């Protein structure tokens, strides 16, 4: 029964991802990226991670992508130039992409997944709540990364102000 929503969301995500890299107008690319984010959020729900799904939509689609749209409008670059300076680059990129898919497929086919099973079955996550489950781990086991994140954000704030306020 889970296969129907999976294939629907996967197809939506892949088509939108192709749109991101193929469309000429950056605003359309951004819109396609929003669709990718939302379809991934749907997949997270299928994987019993609804908290991440909400965080994904809020942070990626609601904040990061809004910033992208703002920058597109700020620079208003229009479409890509059709003239290519490096003619061989585009076909080479596609060949590389195909090679990457082949390699990843090989790795996935050969991989033997470890049988370790932790305590967090979907039933347990549903019972304690996915927000509570992530939070409990984050605020105890991952305490140091959590605090360091604040330093990272501080550096980002200072960096942005320095870069954006230059020469005014």
């Amino acid at each position: 029964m889970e296969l129907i929503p999976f294939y629907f969301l996967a197809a939506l995500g892949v088509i939108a991802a192709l749109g991101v890299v193929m469309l000429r107008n950056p605003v359309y690319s951004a819109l396609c990226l929003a669709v990718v984010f939302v379809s991934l959020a749907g997949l997270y729900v299928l994987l019993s991670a609804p908290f991440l799904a909400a965080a994904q939509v809020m942070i990626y689609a609601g904040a990061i992508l809004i910033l992208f749209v703002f920058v597109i409008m700020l620079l208003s670059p229009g479409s890509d130039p059709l003239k290519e300076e490096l003619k061989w680059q585009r076909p080479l990129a596609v060949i590389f992409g195909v090679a990457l898919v082949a390699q990843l497929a090989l790795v996935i086919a050969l991989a033997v997944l470890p049988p370790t099973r932790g305590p967090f079955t979907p039933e347990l996550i549903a019972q304690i709540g996915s927000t509570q489950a992530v939070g409990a781990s984050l605020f105890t086991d991952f305490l140091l990364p959590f605090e360091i994140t604040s330093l990272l954000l501080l550096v980002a704030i200072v960096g942005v102000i320095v870069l954006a306020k230059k020469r005014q």
Partner: protein
Amino acid sequence: MDLDPIVVTLIEALIKTIVVIIALLTAFAYLTLVERYVIAKIQSRIGPNRVGAIGGIALLQPIADAIKMIFKEDFWPAQADKIIYTIAPGIAVGTALLAWAVMPLHPSTEIFGYHIDFYIADVNIAVLYLLAIGSLGIYGIVLGGWGSNNKYSMLGALRSTAQMISYEISLGLALVGVLMLSGSLSLVDIVEKQSFIWNVVWQPLGFIIYFIAAVAEVNRLPFDLPEAETELVAGYQTEYSSLKFALFYMAEYINMLTVSAIASTMFLGGYQGPFGILPGVHWLILKIMFFIFVMMWMRGTLPRFRYDQLMGFGWKVLLPLALANIFVTAIVMVIFK
């Protein structure tokens, strides 16, 4: 006849969704009428009194408005981006409606031996879901403004977006205090835990911050700079006509209903009556009406902010207040528990 439980869930969800959407659209239609009456009364003049007037109340006015809207010319400005210009109002109204998927409307009851829950979905991330859907709603405005390729639309959309994201932070932080008290993100849980005392008693500051931020989120006076008529004609809606314009308008009013419903649910006990008297949907409607009336009253009496004052207020006053509220709540909870 035995049906697959998933099929039953699907049918139930479909019926509830359609009922909720029809109720919201009706509420929207009559809100426009009520608003014109209230503003007319505040300004001591006569409101609409022509179409199907009964005792001076034009109950058919919204229907006349709707028919007029449908048969207006719908056009695409020559320089507009056709696709984005068309889908923007759809995004605005779609995200506005979707917020109601998690709103608990009435306590669960047995009717003819059949258990009915009066919400579309009870999920344990409901509050985050509301914030996430709210942040997607910004796309409708920013794309509408950009797609129109009109200077007023563009400026209106930019102002609107900057204002909404600024106040979204205070809005999100104002709810944290309630979550600390209830320990759950499910709106059904949060409402059920308020059967004795409403959260507003413990979170008066959080409630006020939420309400101010919510008024700014829905771009109502005194925060209606995105469509300040004197400066920007109609903001991001300038180039829109016919049903596309109506959809933006609809989104705006449904968002008003949504933030009022969230305020009622998170702070005023949702469908719970005072002291547990007769809980039910009529209490929720009364509370929503109260917030809507306050917003109309503010529109009738308050002047508009200046844009720099507006942004300064959000970042320099509301944000620190919301953070202070969280830490005071935390300290009090640590001391008294």
